């Protein structure tokens, strides 16, 4: 394709410049943009605003931010180490709570098992064992 042919193509493609929305479109566009922007600001939670401010502040720092970041990470790790629950049992604060224990029902006799007599050298008595 020579230069003149390329220019002919360009000339035709340039016709697309005439595709444009009516002028009032851009006035409405700005209004729509402002409404949306305000809506977004209202929707943003206070935590979100705080997070944005912190992020902006952080971005604005120079090389200091890496030192600050490392410091914050170190502080986070140390806090986690010290605040991690130890192996000690927790105290029961509720006075009505008692430790669980086995309370056999004394009204019902426990089943008994007869074991065959075992001849022991030291003793001749029969042992009845309860379970």
């Amino acid at each position, binding site marked *: *394709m020579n230069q003149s*042919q*390329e220019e*002919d*193509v*360009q*000339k*035709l*493609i*340039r*016709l*697309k*410049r*005439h*595709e*444009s*929305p009516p002028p009032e*479109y*851009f006035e409405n*566009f*700005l209004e*729509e*943009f*402002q409404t*949306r*922007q305000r809506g*977004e600001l209202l929707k943003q939670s206070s935590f979100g605003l705080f997070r944005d401010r912190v992020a*902006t502040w952080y*971005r*604005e720092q120079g090389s200091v931010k890496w030192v600050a970041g490392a410091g914050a990470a170190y502080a986070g790790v140390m806090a986690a180490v010290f605040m991690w629950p130890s192996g000690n049992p927790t105290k029961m604060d509720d006075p009505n709570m008692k430790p669980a224990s086995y309370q056999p029902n004394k009204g019902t006799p426990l089943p008994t098992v007869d074991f065959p007599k075992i001849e022991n050298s030291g003793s001749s008595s029969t042992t009845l064992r309860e379970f």
Partner: protein
Amino acid sequence: MSSISATESDEELVRLAQDGDTRAFDQLVVKYSPRLYGLVYHMTSHKEDTNDLMQDIFAKAYRSLKRFRGKSSFYTWIYAIGTNMTLNFLKKRKRRATWSLDDVDSGIQNDEAVVDIGHASNPRHQSDINALQKKLNESMQALSDDHRAVVAMFDIQGLPHAEISQILSVSEGTVRSRLFYAHQQLRGHLEEFLR
């Protein structure tokens, strides 16, 4: 609060907007929305998508404004945001692409290229501006997203190669080569309208 004049420079408007002056940012929206509209519209080929993307582009620019250091012009910066967002959108969209011919204003009748076609020997061309417009749209649609972006910026919007290379973060050689291949492809589609 300081008053903003219409002749305020971009640098000043950006500085005011960075300090939280929303009216300054509004001025930038007013100034750049028509040009940005052209870029996005010729890349997406869809009015509603263009409108939605324009809203998203300016919203993102507003959120990112604090990070703008002024190494490039505001125009280049917002064009880069617009181009990247539109290219990402097009990657996701792979569906309809309808042009709105009713958007064509009367200026096209007097355009040098149309007048040339009108004087061409083939009488079919004289009465068929709509057919030409349709063919132009189809030809643009046939291009890849990257090629369409450079055609929209260079041929339709008249941006220089250097600026396009900055916006797209590619070399000027890449811009020229994309344009060359795009023009070749377009020539194939528009043969009947070329003398």
